[in-house]
C-alpha cells in the first residue's frame, strides 16, 4: 500500500507555483491548481463605519454651510439697506476681536510674537482694502445686475463644492501640509463673489465694510472652526448647533423659501447622507493580492 502510494507520487509530482524549468511533467500549462487565487484578500482595508460617528463628522459640513448662509443673509440685508454701514463696521470689529480671542485661547503656546504678527498682517490687510474700496465700488458698473447675481451664486456654489471641510485653507499655526489646489480655487471663488456683491452697494464705506466682513469670514472662519475643533470636540459640536439655530432663525425672518431650502439641505447632509453611506458600504468590494503594486513605507520627499 505504502509503496504504491509512493509510486503514484513519483509518477505525478506535486504541482508547484513556479515559472522555471519548462512545462511541469503531468500538468498542462493551463492547469489550475487548488491554490489558485489562494492569496487573494477581499475587503482587507474596509473600515466599518458607525452611523452616529458619520453623522457627527458631517456636522463640520453643516456648520460651514450655515456660515455661508449667514454671509449671504448679511449681504441681502445690506443690499436692502436694512443694515447701515456703521452697524456693519461694528460687526466687523466684533468678529475680528472674537476671532482673535478664540485663536489665542485655542492655540496652545500662547505667544506675543504670533499675536503681533497677526495684528500687523491684519492692519496691512485692512488699510489695503480701504484704499481699494473705491475701485471695487465702480468695478462692475457697466455690467447688468442680473449677470452679477447669477455669477455670484454660481461662484458661491463652486466655493461650497470645492471647499476643504476637514482642514483650513489658511494654514493654522503648526500645520504641516500645504492647502490643496481645489481649496485655493474655492477660496478665490468666494472672494470674487464678495467683490461682485460689494460692487452693487451705494457708498464706498458700505463697500469697505461688506468686503471686510466677507473676507474675514471666508478667510478666517474655517481657521477658527478648525482651531475650535482641534481644541475641544464637544465645544465644536455645541458651537455648530448654536450656529445652526442662529442661521435658521435669521433665514426664517429673511426669506421663507431660503429657510426651507437650508433646512432641507441640513437634514440631507446630516441625516440622509450618513445613512446612505452606511447602506452602500455593503456593496464595497475590494480585491488585493500579490499582483498589487507595493506601497512604499516611507515618505518620498522630492
Amino acid at each position, binding site marked *: 500500500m505504502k509503496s504504491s502510494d509512493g509510486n503514484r507520487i513519483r509518477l505525478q509530482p506535486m504541482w508547484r507555483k513556479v*515559472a522555471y524549468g519548462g512545462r511541469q511533467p503531468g500538468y498542462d*500549462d493551463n492547469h489550475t491548481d487548488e491554490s*489558485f487565487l489562494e492569496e487573494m484578500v477581499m475587503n482587507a482595508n474596509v473600515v466599518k463605519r458607525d452611523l452616529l460617528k458619520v453623522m457627527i463628522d458631517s456636522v463640520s459640513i453643516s456648520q460651514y454651510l450655515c456660515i455661508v448662509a449667514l454671509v449671504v443673509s448679511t449681504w441681502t440685508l445690506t443690499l436692502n439697506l436694512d443694515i447701515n454701514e456703521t452697524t456693519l463696521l461694528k460687526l466687523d470689529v466684533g468678529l475680528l476681536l472674537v476671532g482673535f480671542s478664540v485663536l489665542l485661547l485655542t492655540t496652545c503656546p500662547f505667544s506675543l510674537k504670533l499675536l503681533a504678527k497677526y495684528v500687523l498682517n491684519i492692519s496691512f490687510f485692512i488699510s489695503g482694502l480701504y484704499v481699494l474700496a473705491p475701485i471695487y465700488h465702480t468695478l462692475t458698473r457697466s455690467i447688468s445686475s442680473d449677470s452679477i447675481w447669477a455669477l455670484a451664486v454660481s461662484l458661491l456654489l463652486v466655493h461650497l463644492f470645492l471647499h476643504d471641510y476637514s482642514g483650513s485653507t489658511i494654514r493654522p499655526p503648526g500645520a504641516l501640509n500645504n492647502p490643496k489646489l481645489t481649496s485655493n480655487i474655492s477660496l478665490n471663488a468666494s472672494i470674487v463673489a464678495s467683490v461682485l456683491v460689494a460692487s452693487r452697494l451705494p457708498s464706498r464705506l458700505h463697500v469697505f465694510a461688506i468686503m471686510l466682513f466677507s473676507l474675514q469670514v471666508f478667510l478666517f472662519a474655517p481657521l477658527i472652526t478648525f482651531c475650535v475643533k482641534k481644541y475641544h470636540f464637544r465645544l465644536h459640536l455645541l458651537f455648530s448647533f448654536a450656529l445652526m439655530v442662529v442661521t435658521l432663525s435669521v433665514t426664517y425672518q429673511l426669506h421663507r423659501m431660503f429657510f426651507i431650502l437650508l433646512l432641507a439641505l441640513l437634514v440631507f447632509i446630516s441625516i440622509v447622507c450618513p445613512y446612505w453611506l452606511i447602506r452602500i458600504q455593503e456593496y464595497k468590494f475590494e480585491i488585493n*493580492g*500579490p499582483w498589487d503594486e*507595493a506601497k512604499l513605507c516611507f515618505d518620498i520627499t522630492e
Partner: protein
Amino acid sequence: MDGTKHRILMVSDFFFPNFGGVESHIYYLSQCLLKLGHKVVVMTHAYGNRSGVRYVTNGLKVYYVPWRPFLMQNTLPTLFLTLPIVRTIIIREKISVVHGHQAFSTLCHEALMHARTMGYKVVFTDHSLYGFADAGSIHMNKVLQFTLADIDQAICVSHTSKENTVLRSGISPEKVFMVPNAVDTAMFTPSPKRLSCDEIVIVVISRLVYRKGADLLVEVIPDVCRLFPKVRFIIGGDGPKRVRLEEMREKFSLQDRVEMLGAVPHAQVRSVLISGHIFLNSSLTEAFCIAILEAASCGLLTVSTRVGGVPEVLPDDMIVLAEPAPEDMVRAVKKAIDMLPGIDPQVMHLRMKKLYSWDDVAKRTEIVYDRAMQSSTTNLLDRLPRYLTCGSWAGKLFCIVMIINYLLWRLLEFLQPAEGIEEVPDIRPLHSQLDSRDDSCEAQEKQI
C-alpha cells in the same frame, strides 16, 4: 501536437526598435516559431520613418502600419479605422491565428476585435499586472474584459499574472495558459574570468522610475554602503528619479562608490552585468521580470523585492527575496553577500540554460495555438451573448461596437472582395531550406 503548421500574425504596439520585455518576447517567440516551421508575421505601428514592410532576421516579416503613436508608444484608439489594414494583412498573408500582446496596446485590442469579427482564431498574451482600485486600472480592466470575452485562448507570463488576468477579465481559468518568458542564454554568458571577492559590486539596471522602485534604492544604497565598506554600486538606466539618486550620492558622499552609467543600450547590458557579483531589482510591481533572468544567466546572484511574479521566476537558491522595505532589502543584501562565496557563475549559467529557453516557450505556445484551432467556429449571434455578460451598460456597449464592426466588415467585403487582394507567396526561411539541425535559435544575431 497534431503537427499542423499555423500561420500566425503577432500584433502589438511594442516591437523593435522599441526595447523591453514585450518586444523581446515577440521577437524571440517569432524566431523560434519560424524555426518550428510555422509562418509568422508581425504587425506593429510605424516608428519614426520606419514604416511599411520590413524583413528582419530569418525572414521574419514585420508590417510597420503607418499609424502614429500618440502616448507611450500607443496608437490612438479608433475602434474601427484599423479594420481595412488588418483585414488586408490577414488575407494577404493567409493568416490562421492572430496573437495579440500586451494589455495596454490599443493596436492589439483593435486587431483582435477585427480578427474575431472576421471569424479568425485569436490568442492574447498578457505581460503585465494591474490593480483594481484606481480609475486607470478600472478602465483598462474593462477594455481587457471586452477583448477577452470572446478570446479562444489567453497566455500569461507567470502564475500570479494568470490569477490577475482571470480576476480582471472574468474568463475561465482553463482558457488561460502560463507560458513564461525566457532568456537568450547564448547572449548572456558569464565573464570567462571569475571576479575577485575583495570588492563586491552590486549592479542595478532598470529604468529609474517610481514603479521600478528607484525611491527604494535611494533608501537602501546609503545603508548598504555604511554597513559593508567593500561594496560598490553600478547603476545603469535613466529616468525621472535619476536626480534623486544623484542627490543621495552627493548627500552621503558616495561618488566613489556609486557609479551612475545613464541609459545602457541593450547590447551593452551583458558587459555591465558581468562586472558585478549581485544584481539588485527593486521593482514595486512586476509580472515576470526578464532582467532577473538576464542577470542570472550572466551568473549573478539576484536580490529582489517579493512582488508580483518575481518569486516564481528563479529557484530559491539563485535569488534572495525581500519585502519592498529598506530594512528588509538591506538584510537581503547582507544574506546575498554571505552566500556569494558559494556561487559559481558558470554553474549558474548552465542551470539557467536548463531552466529557460525560448524554444521551450515556442513549443508551449504552439500547444496553445493547437487548442485555439480546435475551438469551434461561431457566428456573430453566438458571440454577442458573451459580450452581454460583461456588465449591464458595458455589455450593451460592447455588443453595439461588435455589430458596427461586423457591418463595416461586410461593407469592406462588398467594396474590396477578398478575391481581389493578392496573396503573398511564402518565402521559406533560410534555415528550413538548409534543414539545419541547430537546436538554438537564440544565438542568431538580430539585424534590424
